[in-house]
């Protein structure tokens, strides 16, 4: 899907331009994934949008990592001209997950960010209408976080090793 040269180019570009924000990169299943710091994520995506033709936001979602005490936000961009994809991941502290909104670059991020807020409680600063989207509005928790198990965890008749999480 993705040739090695372009991967290298994007990685070197980001390393040069945003040296302080760059953490690491990997390519699981041939998919370039770059881990970044959260502060300048919108500027980085704007840079990729303007210079590398990543002008299509495929998806955006949250991931909860309780053992890292953080909530990650994953952005997946697509360069439709050269058919390249890149995944950007940022890690936000679990206690106060806050990041700038991407709606300034992609209007499509509007509902995706609302969904991420709805399920993970990530606050997107500057979002025009950050409220719950799929759940009821008076819900008080963020249900996709791992501290909300699907089943009553006090049950003793089921062994988790056998029946999964």
């Amino acid at each position, binding site marked *: 899907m993705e040739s090695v040269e372009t991967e290298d180019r994007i990685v070197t570009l980001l390393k040069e331009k945003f040296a302080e924000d760059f953490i690491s990169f990997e390519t699981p*299943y041939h998919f370039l*994934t770059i881990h970044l710091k959260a502060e300048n994520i919108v500027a980085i995506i704007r840079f990729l949008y303007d210079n590398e033709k990543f002008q299509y936001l495929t*998806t955006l979602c949250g991931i909860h990592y309780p053992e890292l005490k953080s909530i990650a936000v994953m952005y997946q961009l697509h360069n439709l001209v050269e058919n390249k994809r890149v995944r950007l991941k940022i890690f936000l502290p679990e206690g106060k997950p806050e990041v700038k909104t991407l709606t300034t670059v992609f209007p499509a991020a509007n509902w995706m960010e609302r969904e991420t807020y709805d399920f993970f409680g990530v606050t997107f600063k500057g979002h025009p209408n950050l409220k719950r989207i799929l759940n009821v509005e008076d819900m008080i928790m963020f249900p996709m976080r791992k501290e909300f198990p699907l089943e009553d965890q006090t049950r003793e008749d089921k062994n988790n090793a056998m029946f999964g999480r």
Partner: protein
Amino acid sequence: MQDVKEIVPGQVTSKEEKQYTYLNLGPTHPATHGIFQNVLKMDGEIIVEATPTIGYIHRAFEKLAERRPFYQITPLTDRMNYCSSPINNMGWHMTVEKLLNIEIPKRVQYLRVIIMQLSRISDHIICNTIIGQDVGATTGFLYLFQFRERIYEIFEEICGARLTTNIGRIGGMERNFSDKAWDKLYKWLEDFPPALQEFSNLLERNRIFMDRTINCGPLSVDMALAYSFSGPNLRAAGVDYDVRVMNPYSSYEEFDFMVPVGTQGDTYDRFMVRQNEMRESLKIIHQALEKVKKEPKDIYKANVPEFVLPPKEEVYNNMEALIYHFKNVMGETDVPKGEVYHSVEGGNGELGFYLISDGGRTPYRLHFRRPCFIFYQAYPEMIKGTMLSDAIITMSSMNVIAGELDA
């Protein structure tokens, strides 16, 4: 008394003496074909502002998936875009196969292509006939729907279910196509093209239909890309992005087909793109049938006993099959750790599965990229300044499916 000039679309001013009407379109409304609510701020018959509310049939599939073994997630995907559930099923199987690095035999890939194209046609039949229905042409709807019914009968022969199919398994198909399924498929392939031709004679160059739909709910390329449209709606706006061509899966690279595009992204273009896609799908099915004939007849799954349930007779008579049966059901096979993204061209666009596996028997995180959810947010902007009746057919031509919207 209002000036006539003032109610020209896009020129609505907010004078103090002007009174707006608020209209609740939905949640259940016969013309929205699903559970969507739109609070419309109306100036006469012109829509000034629309506020959509979604989530009425939210079922928390992403959360449910975190407690289910991989093979139990397929029924969840059925219920997303329920007009073309086989595509969702296949997309999910392929995601897991990508995670497990399973090589799928060619014949299975072609069988999957046939099923996916059939369900694309059934999806487009619904959308296009509903457009006709909403502009007042009921004939096409009643006439073409029997062919959708017959597609469902083919699915029934293959997997036993019609709407929520749960078709195929990780690693292949659950069983080979029966002779009856092949018969029904060939019969359908004979009967459908003339019916489609009649349907297109009815509407495609129909002056009343064209006057009604051209320039109705137009969508520019820039807006389509900014709102991450995909599928027929994006192609109607003029972008030839098709996952089947860009990132081929299931051997689509071997097939010869066109990607129909529109020019101005209005209701008529969306209708025409879907019409032409049905014809292309028929072409693909014929090619796939030719290819299937060249492959050995008895292959319907990959040789991955760790992930495919063995046939029941073997479970009762064969120790290894019994072991694998238990391993499968209890989920004791090791799964690699990793992050996978796989997307297929669903009925409505790029249907993506973002799967994070931590090696457990269930996904650590599963995110569905649902095309409807992403492009429906552009709807208020698309209908701003248009008439209420245009808003209705704009929505039906976008083919927003409530199940996919809310997941």
